[in-house]
């Protein structure tokens, strides 16, 4: 108590900012350590490292082949041509590599940690539990996949004859990061149910199908009630579609508001469900 009171008495705005900076630096250093450990592990099994890259890449190459074949038969799909589709697949490749490289494998293990009680080990550490659990399985190898992703986007944009400006790059990057954040929130929200239900395999299965869904079908195919479902309530339809719409055509103001609104709501929901779940967590007996 005394310590806390002293802390509050001496806590001016400058000191508060310094503490926040120190905290950020601590987390960045922690990320660096996670990355080093993972790279060491990957170097031991170099064949698997490359095989994982080839496997991931194959998914996107097959996706390009599939849509190229469809576009041989049709000129456009709801106003999108083959090059917009290539930008879409490239964008998803980048998004996929970003989340695979950072939080994907960590978040994936959350239900198991809750079920077996190993989450205890993370609660006791002097860092944010959610941060530690999410980023401890960082996989820098997956970042390699951004290279073909960027190449696909560059090729598609080039063929569309779009002039790339700094503003376009900044807007595209912002929207991509917003979708990266949204994906994180969605993954955490679904796994937070494990605090109450313990086994959430069926939820995870649905999530897998929804990710596949957004992966293979651009949001432009949704109309009416489907658009409402996949843009607002289960916003998987936004993922790669919105950055592509921004880059290849003007993104209407309402979509900017939608992105900001959805990210904010799901961000708060994610934090709320995680915190209430942690209160509910009863160690190995949960």
């Amino acid at each position: 108590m005394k310590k806390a009171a002293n802390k509050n008495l001496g806590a001016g705005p400058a000191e508060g900012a310094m503490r926040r900076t120190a905290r950020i630096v601590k987390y960045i250093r922690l990320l660096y350590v996670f990355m080093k450990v993972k790279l060491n592990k990957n170097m031991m099994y170099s064949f698997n490292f490359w095989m994982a890259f080839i496997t991931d890449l194959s998914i996107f190459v097959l996706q390009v082949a599939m849509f190229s074949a469809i576009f041989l038969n049709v000129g456009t799909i709801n106003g999108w041509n083959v090059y917009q589709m290539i930008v879409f697949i490239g964008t998803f490749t980048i998004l996929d590599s970003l989340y695979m490289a950072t939080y994907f494998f960590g978040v994936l293990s959350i239900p198991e940690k809750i079920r077996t009680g190993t989450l205890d080990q993370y609660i006791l550490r002097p860092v944010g539990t959610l941060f530690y659990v999410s980023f401890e399985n960082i996989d820098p190898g997956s970042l390699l996949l951004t290279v073909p992703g960027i190449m696909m986007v560059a090729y598609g944009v080039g063929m569309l004859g779009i002039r790339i400006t700094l503003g376009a790059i900044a807007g595209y990057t912002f929207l991509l990061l917003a979708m990266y954040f949204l994906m994180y929130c969605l993954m955490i929200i679904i796994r937070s149910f494990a605090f109450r239900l313990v086994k959430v395999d069926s939820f995870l299965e649905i999530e897998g199908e929804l990710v596949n869904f957004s992966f293979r079908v651009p949001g432009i195919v949704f109309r009416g009630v489907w658009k409402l479902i996949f843009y607002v309530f289960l916003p998987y339809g936004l993922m790669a579609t919105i950055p592509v719409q921004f880059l290849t055509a003007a993104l209407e103001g309402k979509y900017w508001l939608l992105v900001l609104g959805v990210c904010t709501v799901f961000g708060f929901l994610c934090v709320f469900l995680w915190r209430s779940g942690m209160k509910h967590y009863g160690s190995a007996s949960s």
Partner: protein
Amino acid sequence: MRKYAEIAGITWKSMMAYRYDVFAGAIFSICKILLAWLMWRVIFLNREQVGGYDFASMMTYYIIASFLGRLDQSNGLNWQFCNEIRNGQFGKYIVRPLRPVLYFLSCSYSKSVYVFGVNIIATAAWALIFFKQFRISPDIADWCLAALVFLLGMNFMIMFNYFLSILCFRFINIDGLNILKSNLIEFVSGALVPLSVFPAAVTKAFSLLPFYYTVYYPASLLAGRNEGSPLAAVAAMLFWNTLIIVVSALYYKKYVRKFEGAGI
């Protein structure tokens, strides 16, 4: 043969223990069909035909392809065999009076029969939901032929997965290869998109592969499209089945000696 029937029975019982997963899988097959419906509905907006399919036959194709694609359950056994070879547990098949290949076949078929029973109900339900777009061939001959080609195709897939699993004697870890294989086969078998949307030369090249006959050929036939001579399809699958059986037997004989029991 009785011992293999017993193995099939035990596999059936273990499937019953995890029946929730099987039911959930059958229900979630709607996602694939819904995805196809949403996508193709937009593609067909101003068109009558794409790749020789109209909207109804395209949806029929997806409903059937989704059903057929779930029936082959040997991929899971492939992973199981690989792990057992890697961890030294494969010895249990060697010391018992049974042949691993027949064990693999009996487990796979047992799982397929169970999944068939569950999925046929789900498929009938999806066919009812999409009844406006569901237009299956009324010709019994098409049904019989599709069943024959599909069974030969499924047998090939089981043997192919068995062959991949015994590659572990030589290469120890083939997890990446297995994932790559699943992605490629989903594509070249026509499970993702009907192969007729590709240029004719590419479709012709696909027809030289056995995977063409595992989903695409029977699903097309049931959707009312004939994608080549039935006799040629049966002959091709007999050839591929013979080849994979012989190659697997030779490979097993050569590399089982590398197995040391305590993990390799």
